[in-house]
């Protein structure tokens, strides 16, 4: 066992503690580095390489996989759906989370109210998908609707809708051309149901960090609730909103489970991750699957950079 050297500690700067023992840190890092290199770094580089190869990775085919991806209508639909997720899911979950964080902060049963919204965070996407497939369950007209959404719909005189199959509602068909199928909105809603609690909890912690003196000073100066929210709370909270937003963006891009269990990507609901899975296991085309993974990585890259910058700022202010 390597002993630490007492002599080192007379210059008690935190980082100097083990200065003399050069190899030791690497022994402590070794297991982690082994896993990170073998299962994260090497595979990432390898996937990049595979994306320029044919389906069984036996020959290089240049950028053909990428050309195929951007030419095929299936991928275009998937990319568009990811954009829909990115925008709608992120904005709704963050927005609702912020509203609920502010509202629940005003009442005494705050933790109870928050728990109700937060619980979906604990369960799997798979369980959430089952819950909502049941909510959206569809029976043809004239049968008893056992799904709550259609029961309410038919209760107020609408036709029952096959929410997870339907590409467009009869009434708003005109507004939603092309790949913006309505079933995608139904699945995004499930994502919002799951992740609003996350946004709410993180933002609520941010809200609690705002000093009451600032808020009281504003009240004394005659500001109303509305002004205080827009002029004080929102600006102070914006870094926290950014953290929530980037987390949700990553979720939206990587999103697989929910779509896979709810529709398996059928009826125009594919996203990049489900398409990649199909290329892997249904078509055994590892070149195209890799190219799709690279597309995901490139989309997430800005978030990586934002995270690094944020981390550096944090370190400097520590």
């Amino acid at each position, binding site marked *: 066992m390597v002993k630490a050297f007492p002599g080192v500690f007379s210059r008690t700067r935190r980082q100097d503690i083990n200065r003399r023992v050069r190899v030791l840190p690497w022994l402590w890092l070794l*297991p982690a580095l082994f896993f990170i290199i073998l299962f994260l770094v090497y595979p990432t580089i390898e996937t990049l390489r595979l994306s320029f190869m044919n389906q069984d990775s036996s020959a290089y085919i240049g950028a053909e996989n990428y050309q195929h991806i951007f030419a095929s209508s299936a991928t275009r639909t998937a990319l568009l759906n990811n954009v829909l997720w990115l925008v709608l899911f992120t904005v709704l979950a963050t927005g609702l989370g912020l509203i609920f964080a502010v509202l629940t902060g005003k*009442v005494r049963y705050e933790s109870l109210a928050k728990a109700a919204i937060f619980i979906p965070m604990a369960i799997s996407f798979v369980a959430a998908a089952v819950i909502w497939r049941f909510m959206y369950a569809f029976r043809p007209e004239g049968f008893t609707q056992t799904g709550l959404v259609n029961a309410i719909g038919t209760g107020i005189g609408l036709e029952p809708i096959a929410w997870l199959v339907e590409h467009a509602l009869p009434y708003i068909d005109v507004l939603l051309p092309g790949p913006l199928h309505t079933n995608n909105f139904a699945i995004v809603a499930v994502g919002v149901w799951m992740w609003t609690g996350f946004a709410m909890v993180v933002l609520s912690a941010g809200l609690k960090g705002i000093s009451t003196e600032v808020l009281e000073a504003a009240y004394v100066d005659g500001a109303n609730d509305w002004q205080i929210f827009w002029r004080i709370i929102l600006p102070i909270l914006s870094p926290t909103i950014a953290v*929530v937003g980037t987390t949700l963006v990553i979720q939206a891009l990587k999103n697989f489970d929910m779509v896979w269990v709810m529709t398996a990507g059928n009826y125009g609901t594919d996203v990049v991750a489900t398409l990649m899975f199909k290329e892997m296991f249904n078509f055994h085309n590892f070149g195209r699957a890799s190219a799709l993974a690279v597309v995901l990585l490139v989309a997430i890259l800005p978030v990586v950079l934002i995270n690094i910058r944020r981390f550096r700022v944090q370190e400097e202010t520590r």
Partner: protein
Amino acid sequence: MSAAGKSIDERFSARARKLVKRFPLHLIIVLVGLFWMTPSVGLLVSSFRDARDVASSGWWTAFQLPFQFTLENYADVLTQNRMGPSFLNSLIISIPGTIVPILIAGFAAYAFAWMRFRGRDVLFLFVVALLVVPLQMTLIPVLRLLTDMHLAGSFPGIWLAHTAYGLPFAVFLLRNFFGGLPRELLESAYLDGASNMRVFFRLVLPLSVPALASLAIFQFLWVWNDLLVALVILQDPAKTPMTVAITNLVSSFGTQWQLLTSAAFISMMLPLVIFFALQRYFVQGILAGSVKG
């Protein structure tokens, strides 16, 4: 503002006015809370209803007398639809999938926080960057790697994968926590001649229980709730965790709601228990995890 001069009536009416003014707020919160709970309640209620009832009427009609609830669905899915073995598989996957990465990350985090070496900060920044690299980017090579090692489709194979996938976040969280421990305490331990191992196991880990608890909950739920990694790596039907088993159930019995709801509830039980019993750590883990994808 002193209430001393006011009569009880006046004070009471002031409170009543406040209550009326705040009534819309309470109404909104209660309605939203109920709205958010309704889907889960529907699942729970349906899982206790008879197959014929579930197929012929909405779950909200189950609250009429005479109540007709049954445990039959649970008995069915546990024995006939492999939910029992799958529950066990989920545990077999999740427990090492939680402990191993945390231990390994603990070693690395200790080095990052308390040792000085060349390239430390760059290396740690690299780990931060890895936090959000999409899993999809690694799946194909990892599958091939595990196949070459004859570990694809085995529990050790998925343990290795989950260990690797959990590491960046675990290292990140623990390094930040370890770095915040009081320096004097560690220094005096070194001065007393304690080895790094001793300091790590006897001092750093015990002092970090809150962070370890949050991390353990986060990682456990991540592995427990995972579908994608299990789908790719564990194709052996005898070893599938619950998430995969339920997904298969959905594709073969998509409208047998009494089965699907009870199966889903079995998979939710453990996360819900953890949520209610350890809510504080759970929330802290989520807060710390807001950087992980």
